[in-house]
């Protein structure tokens, strides 16, 4: 399975993301610049965190119109797994691939620390290796992670089991219903504020994020490997 790590001007978690899938997961990965014309050769698309285009206007608002995003939308329609972390999540929201929007953290502070997440739905292609209700430790690092959507959207998210991760007990940023990560209705686009790519090695404080990447590969193998 081959991953594309999309690099925008101002991305700064692209190297961590590449390291997670290439070295820790052992999959193929390549950096893909924001003006790329095609993503056809990739099986999974990763939108890393950072401050694309300096977060000008709104986080993700400018990146959403970059050339590669047309291809990301095409890949989403084709059912390929797409993971947006932090700024990547914000870009997916601005692009309309996921519902809702991000507000500034209610504390108005940039928060950088490890938090507890609860796996609310372990039946997605991003979470199947976790147990249902499993509590995991993943770092967050953001100033605008205060998720918002209107009531009707929230009802839809709940009804379709689209809320995959929530902050466990303590809400760090004011996010609606403790939401930390959601998938689209089809289940192949995940956006989350916490950084699983920063939790892939016990030596660096924890490896709870690795199961997320393992889930993607597991689903891909089940779908693509022909049993003899």
């Amino acid at each position, binding site marked *: 399975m081959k991953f594309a790590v999309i690099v925008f001007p101002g991305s700064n978690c692209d190297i961590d993301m590449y390291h997670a899938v290439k070295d820790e997961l052992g999959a193929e990965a390549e950096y893909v610049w924001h003006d790329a014309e095609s993503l056809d050769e990739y099986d999974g698309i990763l939108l890393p965190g950072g401050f694309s285009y300096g977060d000008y*206007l*709104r986080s993700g*608002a400018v990146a959403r*119109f970059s050339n590669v995003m047309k291809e990301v939308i095409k890949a989403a329609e084709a059912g390929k797994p797409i993971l947006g972390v932090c700024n990547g999540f914000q870009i997916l*929201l*601005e692009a309309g691939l996921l*519902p*809702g*929007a991000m*507000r*500034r*953290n*209610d*504390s*108005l502070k940039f928060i950088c620390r490890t938090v507890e997440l609860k796996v609310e739905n372990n039946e997605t292609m991003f979470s199947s290796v976790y147990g249902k209700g499993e509590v995991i430790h993943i770092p967050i690092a953001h100033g605008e992670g*205060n998720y*918002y*959507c*209107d009531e009707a959207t929230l009802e839809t998210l709940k009804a379709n089991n689209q809320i995959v991760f929530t902050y466990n007990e303590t809400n760090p940023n*004011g996010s609606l219903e403790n939401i930390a990560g959601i998938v689209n209705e089809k289940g192949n686009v995940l956006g989350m504020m916490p950084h699983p790519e920063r939790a892939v090695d016990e030596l660096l404080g924890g490896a709870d994020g690795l199961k997320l990447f393992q889930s993607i590969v597991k689903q891909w193998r089940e779908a693509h490997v022909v049993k003899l």
Partner: protein
Amino acid sequence: MYKVKVFVTLRESVLDPQGTVVKNSLHSMNYSEVSDVRIGKYMELTVEKSDRPVEEAVKEMCERLLANVVIEDYRFEIEEAVAQ
């Protein structure tokens, strides 16, 4: 040529944490008459005349880029400007 002033604010239904902090500061300075503060963005656009009505073009720009209508409201004022 037109000068367009665009104002973007968080929607009424969305809590504005910056506005709340500024309101509390004003209260601590004894401006107790302030009941609400909303912080927003102000943008000035210079738009050349074209075949397309300027109102229609600016509305589209607001919807597509300048505001995120999930959480923000926008309004704009258009003035006809004489080229310098």
